[in-house]
């Protein structure tokens, strides 16, 4: 997907990257990053196993832990669980707003949060790629918002899975088919299980 906004005078108007709705169990499996040009300002995208690139994510879940690391350069780390797994969240003094928001959240009792942030891939010395999310904002919400997000993430994931097995695949879909080897049913089952956790009468 390209930035398609109309040129505005001599400046190209900047188009903000949309936030992809992705479950923890899918984000965890992402290993491939994409850069369109060698230009160092060119954004780095993470290729999701379902075949869309992402440079920003919207996630929701329950915050289960929060740790403050460092004295001079403070960094907060947090764990957020959705019905499929764990997201690793961090916020440093480079994201002051997110850091203040996270600092205020009490983790003695569970609460639902929504996080907007940038996914980061890090390969550890053993060669395993770990994905964390650098928060731009993290806010406490109620259960209704979390449930809306599970529906939203379910719909988005199913849409991506449909496109993944399309007869006229995009370049990203082709790359995903080459890189990741999950059958579509794997993701459909993940979506089904996530929805059944919020299923109510």
């Amino acid at each position, binding site marked *: 997907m390209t930035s398609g906004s109309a040129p505005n005078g001599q400046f190209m108007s900047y188009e903000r990257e949309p936030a992809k709705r992705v479950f923890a169990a899918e984000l965890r499996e992402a290993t491939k990053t994409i850069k369109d040009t060698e230009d160092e300002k060119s954004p780095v995208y993470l290729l999701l196993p379902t075949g869309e690139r992402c440079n920003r994510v919207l996630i929701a879940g329950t915050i289960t832990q929060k740790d403050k690391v460092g004295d001079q350069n403070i960094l907060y780390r947090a764990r957020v669980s959705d019905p499929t797994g*764990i997201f690793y969240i961090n916020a440093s003094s480079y994201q002051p707003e997110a850091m203040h928001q996270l600092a205020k959240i009490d983790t003695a009792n569970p609460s639902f949060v929504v996080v907007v942030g940038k996914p980061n891939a890090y390969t550890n010395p053993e060669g395993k790629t770990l994905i964390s999310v650098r928060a731009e*904002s993290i*806010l406490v919400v109620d259960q209704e918002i979390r449930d809306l997000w599970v529906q*939203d993430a379910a719909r988005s994931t199913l849409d991506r899975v449909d496109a993944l097995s399309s007869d006229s695949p995009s370049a990203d879909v082709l790359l995903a088919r080459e890189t990741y080897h999950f059958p579509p*049913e794997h993701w459909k089952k993940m979506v*089904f299980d996530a*929805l059944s956790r*919020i299923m109510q009468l």
Partner: protein
Amino acid sequence: MDAQQIQQITDRISQNLVSKGVSPDKQNISEKLTLYINEFGVVPFEAERKVLSDQYKQYNIPEEAKQAPGSSAGEIVNIADIQPNDWVTVEVKVVSLQTPNSPAIAQSGIFADSSGAVRFVVFSKASELPKLELEKWYRVESAVVDSFKGVPNLKLHSGSRVTEIEDDRCLVPSEPTKLRDLKPGVVSCVHVKFIEEWESRSDRMMQSGLVADESGRTKFVLWQDPEKEKLVPGAVYNIFYASVDEYNGRFSLTLNSAVWIQDEDAEISVPVSSGSSAPKEPLPISTIRDLKVGYASLRVKFVEEWESKSERMMQSGLVGDETGRIKFVLWQDDSKERLELGRVYEIINAKVDEFNGRLSISLNPATYSAAEPEADIAVGTRLDEVTGTIVQVSKGSGLVRRCPVEGCNRVLSRQNFCPIHEIQNAFHYDLRIKGVVDNGQRAYNVLMNREVTEQLSGMTMEQAIEMASNSPLGLEEIQAVLTEKLCGRYVICLGNEFDGRILVKSAEFIHLDPKITAELMNRAGASAGGSGV
């Protein structure tokens, strides 16, 4: 997650604690696990890690090791007394069974005892449980009380036990509940008169309308079901075990779970209320923007005709006036004439309905004519609609000071400096949101004016001014408050795009519709090897 799995994790944590020399409080551990896993949707391994780490913290300070609330295992609980998160044993009669709307659910319906009634589900995974039969009594052990929007419901999982009660019991229904006193859930009995039948808007709907008792009136709906018979308008009924739903603060009864008996001798004097029954006099002309549910007269242009989706529909489409557009419907009726596209009509006493938060008008009870052949209306432009999540409340949101010079109105800097008119200390305040609404495919810049900001945040400009003057952060406090109240929320915005930014005319929060969960489960389950419904 079922009780057995919770039990296994509880045992693992307990053994770990025993090895550290403390005697574990299994009940407390199990409840915490249930809270994290079943209420907060945390994955089991993460819940196990969290609860174990909390237990470690707890036992470093022994005097804080608190006693868990008393267990009610084995003791029979009245339905009226069950509380969310309890594990309960109940003795109940199956008074209603419905077709489950998801393959994950084996059975769903309503249990009743003499104290009340509650919805239940039996999960498909709990395959060892006997199939429940209508009208039979059962003892149900270790059912989990879940809650949805504050309404308790019972979940039967593979750890629950169900035994049929053979002795002949009778269920004494409670006194009828007054409509005024309805609560979401299941109402054991109401004594009502069927006062108004409505046109069915969908093939799935068998009947809908209003029922009333001395205390008030309530909408009801009966979905298509070959086992059910329609109610007779004007008759009085005792209706048992109807489901009570709440939508936009109003209650409605769904009768598919219910049984009813006509009470032939009874008569109910129904209080008169305005709005629901057709007015006797022609109402004055109002504008589309100001419409409310009830009846209204309009002067509108017929701007868009839609293809009829059903044979019963004579015509439908959009009519508009200077303030906006609205959908209209005309049901088959030999005494009515079709509207002519492009003409202006005066419509007297049309019925205004609400469906899924959107208003529409029905022309069947109305009289209408295109009296002025030359008349035209500049119909309000169609607004762009953006649905998504507010992912950012940007800098410049909140309380701003504006330049007081006639026709300027620019936002002043911190020092009350206008880029054109320099220092202006006689500024006036304004409240706004500059933000981003993101639907996962595209991020839209939005600008919300004072009215929309006040409505979404529930904070008036006066309150914002007071809050800012009491905060060390000053105006920045308001941006932080708006972020906290609105970021992450799902909204529908209507407005016009201008220079890459949507000027939002109106916005509202999106609310959860559980039917969508079921639809998505069907979509995911249809080809995921599961048995789609």
